[in-house]
């Protein structure tokens, strides 16, 4: 009986202590003081902006770290119903290409603009992978201001990668194609008739116009799959490096046929040399139809089609490029903060190979080349360039591997490297100096793609936080049906041992993420658009300017919005008229947008920031009286912010 009582008491005691707490503890993450490290008090700000690509969503999200809060989605290559981007007339032209209006793409690698090898907080560049494009986002407004199409390319994956002072933004071809495009047998790929291009884009930081990017030249290279890139820094300032796979030039069953060679290549391009050759007239005019689109604030975006570029061939510019053999089907190619070492993520390799820039220069000088060259590009001897090989795979028992499937490496400010290991679900911390030594293995859940350290690809990494960007989520969060958000885990890397401190879902498919200390951006973030600087042709900068302008069957409605009414209050048009509403938000107060929607029109929402003018266009098809209203809750009288359009 006594035993029974004791058991009963124990059970009840256990029930009592548990009864007021919900859920279970999170295992490793709550085992430490992790919660304190990521807790940002209500009303307080995060320390870091982390920009994550949206992958197949075509846009970009901004998270605050360490809290993991989602701060904003920035639409880039895709139309965005939340604010009307790409639907409204002001930004629609940004999505124009030589193939017409393409309102969707696949965005992969956000890269912050650089000055002296560090992120400077001016702009962020991101690639459109499917129909090759590079976008520039202004970080004072967090808006896409410019998109340039990359001609003579396909699968714009090794893109965008920047030189130390943003002298150039580089893009390279992942899916080699006939250049210029023509219809030839697909099997010609294996005969070397397909090509890739390395595209160098300049960015004019001095002009006030948002028309800043320009294709300076393209370098025509053999048709391999150029995957990822990084440019040098310090001693390697003049060079950019591009990883490649499928040097087998397979066009069928790449998974098998492009994995035959033990080594593929890193392409080292001397961009200073290329620049000199282009200046000396070695690059020739070449077909290269591409769209260049930009949006000056306060007006309507412009799209221009250009038809030619300058093409440089390696044979016309000796010493412009070299191939460095690298095991095996490498993904990442990362230059350490000193600029002395080039680390490859040899996806299928049992080692992490590290090349020495100094050795590469000596090998070039002494012509330590393999017999075979490709498209006038010499192949350097592996042993002459390799600095160290960090053995990471246990072939007898892969579960014991330090890093199985190394993909991508970033660095901290203490000489350590962090490599993502896709197949073994972990990050490997290792030390890179005269030798390479493994230091710590931490789990990532699951199938980690890229790893991102704040400033981890720069000359001076910030070093405190690291993020894993994972491809498979499964049991990490509450289930939401078959489709789960991707998972990211945040680690504190400031101490001797890495600690996982947060796990949070992300939007779309963040391939890569690029982070910057918040102080570099937060102070110059715009609060409003000045009405006085609004140069939109149909802006109504005061209610006096509001009204209707009829030009034949086209009716421009210059509409003003201010808490809490529109002017004009009523609009009458004729059936069949082409109606364009230009809505100007007269507010000049931070964070008071007005929304706008008209019954039965294909564009159901505009979000107009203070001082902005945005426009929607539709044809008045049916006779009747239809409401329009403010879609953004703006004041206590928001519900009253509603009027009618009559179609007679």
């Amino acid at each position, binding site marked *: *009986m006594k035993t*029974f*009582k004791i058991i*009963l*008491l124990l059970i*009840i005691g256990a*029930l*009592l202590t548990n*009864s*007021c707490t919900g859920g279970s503890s999170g295992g490793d993450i709550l085992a430490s003081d992790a919660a304190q490290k990521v807790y940002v008090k209500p009303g307080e700000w995060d320390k870091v902006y982390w920009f994550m690509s949206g992958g197949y969503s075509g846009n970009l999200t901004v998270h605050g770290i360490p809290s993991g809060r989602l701060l904003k989605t920035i639409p880039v290559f895709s139309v965005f119903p939340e604010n009307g981007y790409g639907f409204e007339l002001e930004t629609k032209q940004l999505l124009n290409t030589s193939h017409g209006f393409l309102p969707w793409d696949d965005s992969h690698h956000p890269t912050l603009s650089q000055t002296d090898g560090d992120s400077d907080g001016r702009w962020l560049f991101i690639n459109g992978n499917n129909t090759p494009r590079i976008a520039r986002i202004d970080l004072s407004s967090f808006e896409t201001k410019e998109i340039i199409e990359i001609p003579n390319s396909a699968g714009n994956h090794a893109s965008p990668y920047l030189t130390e002072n943003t002298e150039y933004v580089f893009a390279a071809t992942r899916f080699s194609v006939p250049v210029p495009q023509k219809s030839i047998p697909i099997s010609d790929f294996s005969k070397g008739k397909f090509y890739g291009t390395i595209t160098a884009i300049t960015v004019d930081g001095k002009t006030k116009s948002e028309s800043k990017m320009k294709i300076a030249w393209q370098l025509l290279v053999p048709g391999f799959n150029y995957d990822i890139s990084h440019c040098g820094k310090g001693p390697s300032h003049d060079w950019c490096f591009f990883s490649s796979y499928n040097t087998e030039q397979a066009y069928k069953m790449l998974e098998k046929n492009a994995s035959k060679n033990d080594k593929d290549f890193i392409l080292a391009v001397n961009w200073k040399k290329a620049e000199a050759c282009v200046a000396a007239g070695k690059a020739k005019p070449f077909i290269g139809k591409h769209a260049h689109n930009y949006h000056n604030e306060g007006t309507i975006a412009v799209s221009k089609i250009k038809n030619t570029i300058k093409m440089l061939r390696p044979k016309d510019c000796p010493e412009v490029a070299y191939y460095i053999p690298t095991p095996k089907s490498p993904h990442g190619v990362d230059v350490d903060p000193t600029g002395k070492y080039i680390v490859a993520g040899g996806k299928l390799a049992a080692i992490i190979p590290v090349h020495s820039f100094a050795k590469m220069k000596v090998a070039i000088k002494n012509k330590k080349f393999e017999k075979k060259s490709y498209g006038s590009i010499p192949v350097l001897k592996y042993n002459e360039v390799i600095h160290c090989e960090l053995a990471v795979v246990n072939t007898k028992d892969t579960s014991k591997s330090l890093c199985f499937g190394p993909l991508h490496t970033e660095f901290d400010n203490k000489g350590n490297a962090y490599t993502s290991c896709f197949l073994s679900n972990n990050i490997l911390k290792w030390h890179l100096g005269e030798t390479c030594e493994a230091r710590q293995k931490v789990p990532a859940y699951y199938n980690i793609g890229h790893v991102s350290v704040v400033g981890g690809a720069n000359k001076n990494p910030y070093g405190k936080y690291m993020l894993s960007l994972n491809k498979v989520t499964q049991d990490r969060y509450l289930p939401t049906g078959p489709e789960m958000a991707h998972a990211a885990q945040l680690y504190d890397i400031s101490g001797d041992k890495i600690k996982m401190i947060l796990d949070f879902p992300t939007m779309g498919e963040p391939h890569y993420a690029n982070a910057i200390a918040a102080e570099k951006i937060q102070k110059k973030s715009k609060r*409003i658009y*000045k*009405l006085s600087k609004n140069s939109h042709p149909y802006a109504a*900068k*005061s*209610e*006096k300017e509001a009204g209707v302008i009829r030009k034949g069957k086209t009716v421009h409605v210059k509409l*003003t919005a*201010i*808490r*809490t*009414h529109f*002017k004009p209050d009523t609009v009458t048009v004729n059936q069949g008229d082409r109606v364009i509403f230009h809505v100007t938000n*007269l*507010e*000049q*107060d931070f964070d*008071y947008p007005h929304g706008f929607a008209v019954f039965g029109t294909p564009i159901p929402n505009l979000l107009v920031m203070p001082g902005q003018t945005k426009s929607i266009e539709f044809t008045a098809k049916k006779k009747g009286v239809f409401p329009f209203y403010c879609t953004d809750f703006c*004041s*206590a*009288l928001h519900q009253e912010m509603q009027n009618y359009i009559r179609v007679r």
Partner: protein
Amino acid sequence: MKTKFLFLVIMTIFFTSCEKKSEVLVMDTGGSDKQEDPLKNKGIGPVKTVKLGPLDVALAKKGKKIFSTKCSACHAIKTRSVGPALIGITKRRSPEWVMNMIVNTNEMVEKDPIVKAMIATYMVKMTYQDISKKDARKILEYFRQIDK
């Protein structure tokens, strides 16, 4: 028997352990209808003292122009619109208060006792229009002209 009793006691504790009476929030309806002389209220903001001279007609004309673009969406002179009619404003309010309301709208809306009382009548908060101190002075001159 004893065990049963013990069980009941413990279960009672268990089931009541999370119950907590919700507190009722009672609105404080106190306060004073008495207001200090509004003309002594200089408002909150960067405008500390305004020296008024004889009416400057040229300045008032500039003020009228700014008023018509920045203020007239919500204010009329003689009648109540979204906000109050502005006739008599210089008799009801100090010049500093008027200018602070224009240049430091958000803080005035949150803190100034006169504005807080007015919100109950108008049910809408005045919006900041990014007007400089210099321009606010011109608008004040326009109000002075109206009230003359």
